[in-house]
């Protein structure tokens, strides 16, 4: 067993992918000389050369479009956008170009690019450096979206994303970058679209992803002391998401709570709730509950931000509500 940090797992995945495939290149602001704003690409310029680890000017629109064009012409670009909030500037490239190229060119082209970007609050970074905008991307046919919750999944999903022939958005949570976990050797490559049960339980299912998995597990711990057995399902992939795994868990527990750090309204949780109401209706013994951020920008002050972020206590309340 060795201890692996989340950010180091990202770094290893990039290095291993670059080692395995000479067409993998890293593109982004401060990814090369500085090794990434959060250190994801540290040491990779020294190892693979500056032609494959490219520091770009602050031109998100152009570098995203460049990644699309490069992917259509034989490279496998991994683009880093320093904060998910800045993905507002890459929307044309991702939504109108990357997502649609394969379909609208009749299968002539594929766009094997990855957009890596961190979301999430908790660092006092304020309204423009903390947002969770994954639902925007998950809403676009042609894009895949994954959101690892720990070091092993950070490695396994990033490797899968780089290998994937289609554009994949890999969303990391900034608050998880320092997270450590014990792993045995190199973590396995994970299939995109598969959820995992992080904690088995019988009384209620909590579906979560990213940093919210920790919140869900904390809530499950609290309720275990009260004799309530909660199953925590880690989605890992948001588009496509593992509908079968959610339905299977719901069919065992008959209660469903969905947790994410993103704003609750119109979020990933809304989609899961709607689908389960449709295909899992007969299994439900209580209302489907969602726990997400309130409908407001992420605030700066610690007090405000703490109140803003979904908490274990909030998840406990939601589970209790559906079990009433």
């Amino acid at each position, binding site marked *: 067993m060795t201890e692996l940090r989340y950010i180091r797992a990202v770094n290893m995945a990039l290095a291993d992918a670059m080692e395995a495939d000479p067409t993998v290149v890293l593109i982004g602001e401060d990814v090369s000389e500085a090794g990434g704003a959060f250190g994801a690409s540290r040491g990779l310029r020294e190892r693979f050369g500056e032609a494959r680890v490219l520091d770009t000017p602050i031109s998100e629109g152009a570098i995203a479009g460049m*990644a699309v064009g490069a992917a259509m012409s034989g490279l496998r670009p991994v683009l880093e956008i320093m904060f998910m909030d800045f993905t507002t500037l890459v929307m044309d490239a991702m939504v109108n170009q990357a997502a649609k190229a394969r379909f609208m060119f009749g299968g*002539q*082209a*594929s766009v094997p690019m990855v957009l890596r970007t961190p979301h999430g609050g908790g660092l006092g970074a304020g309204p423009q450096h903390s947002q969770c905008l994954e639902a925007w991307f998950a809403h676009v046919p042609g894009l895949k979206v994954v959101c690892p919750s720990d070091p092993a999944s950070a490695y396994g999903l990033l490797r899968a994303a780089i290998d994937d*022939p289609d554009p994949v958005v890999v969303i990391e949570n900034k608050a998880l970058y320092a997270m450590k976990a014990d792993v045995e050797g190199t973590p396995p490559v994970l299939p995109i679209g598969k959820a995992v049960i992080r904690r088995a339980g019988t009384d209620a299912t909590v579906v979560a992803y990213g940093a919210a998995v920790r919140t869900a597990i904390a809530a499950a711990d609290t309720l275990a002391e009260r004799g309530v057995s909660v199953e925590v399902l880690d989605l890992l992939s948001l588009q496509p998401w593992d509908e079968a795994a959610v339905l299977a868990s719901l069919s065992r527990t008959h209660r469903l709570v969905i947790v994410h750090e993103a704003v609750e309204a119109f979020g990933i949780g809304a989609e899961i709730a709607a689908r389960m109401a449709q295909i899992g209706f007969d299994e439900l013994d209580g209302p489907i509950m969602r726990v997400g951020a309130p409908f407001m920008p992420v605030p700066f002050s610690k007090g405000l931000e703490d109140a803003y972020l979904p908490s274990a206590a909030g998840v406990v309340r939601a589970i209790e509500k559906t079990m009433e």
Partner: protein
Amino acid sequence: MAIRPPIPDAADPAAPAGGPSREALLALYRKLLTVRRAEERLGTLFSDGEVPGFIHLSIGQEAVSVGIMSALGDADTIASTHRGHGHAIAKGMPLEGFFSELLARDEGLCRGRGGSMHVADMSVGMLGANGIVGAGLSIALGSALAHKTLGRDACAVAFFGDGALAEGLVHECMNLAALWKLPLLFVCENNGWGEFLPTSKQLSFRLADLAATYGIAHRLVDGNDVVAVAAAAEAVVPGIRAGSGPAVLECMTTRVRGHFEGDAQKYRDPDEIEALAARDPLRISAERLAGMGSNDADLSLAAEEVEAAVETALTVARSGRAPDFAAALADVYTGAA
């Protein structure tokens, strides 16, 4: 009023002393004619209701497509615009695949999912027309990066209109291409219009000055003279492929039709449109050919052959299948089918 640079005359220093042989020019003329006939036919098909959607014709601008493409090979890539039929055909997209796509057939190169604004043929390096003004610049930028990184002896070409110059992406892409010395040729088709407003009312700068800001060589070209365009492209493409960095060709040209088919151009002075006949790219080439000793029979033979090729492709396209919905749905992601 207008910030339109003068159209260079025939004494443009870009045009090499010799110029193309009569055979070579006849071949270019035939390509011009192919684009023209294909688009004229699309115009009638559109008004007859056989072509759905929006189509933007490049009639009057064919010499830019044909001239630039004459300097390119299959390994070179291009990213195009909403007005991309000429780029596609000149780059080598077969007419059958082209018409089949425009008629929304399963045999279309995009299987009836893209249509006019997304015609593409990856096998000849045509990375797609584009419905988003300016987006093609960044696609070409990425393709140029791939050529450079993978050590290919190839360049990428970004086509864009003068209206696109007001997009911020132009600045980002020119800066990056110059900074990294990417093998990228910027081709601006300056037709004086962006939709229904003269670009003199949209732009406060000249492309020449913008290019100079990035240290990119800029050349003004008579975009209606295929010989001048071809010469300008030939003058810069080998150097670009060899790593000398990007260049800008600003091709002064003429949009004869409306912004899209069905646009009655009420906003335009009829005299202006009438005057365009004197600058018709086909007429300019035909006159050059006549000066080189071609006779009317050469030209009418070319016209007959092109006409026949267009009609044959159209007949094939008309007999094609409608696209299958389930197949389309299964093709959003690779290997999902």
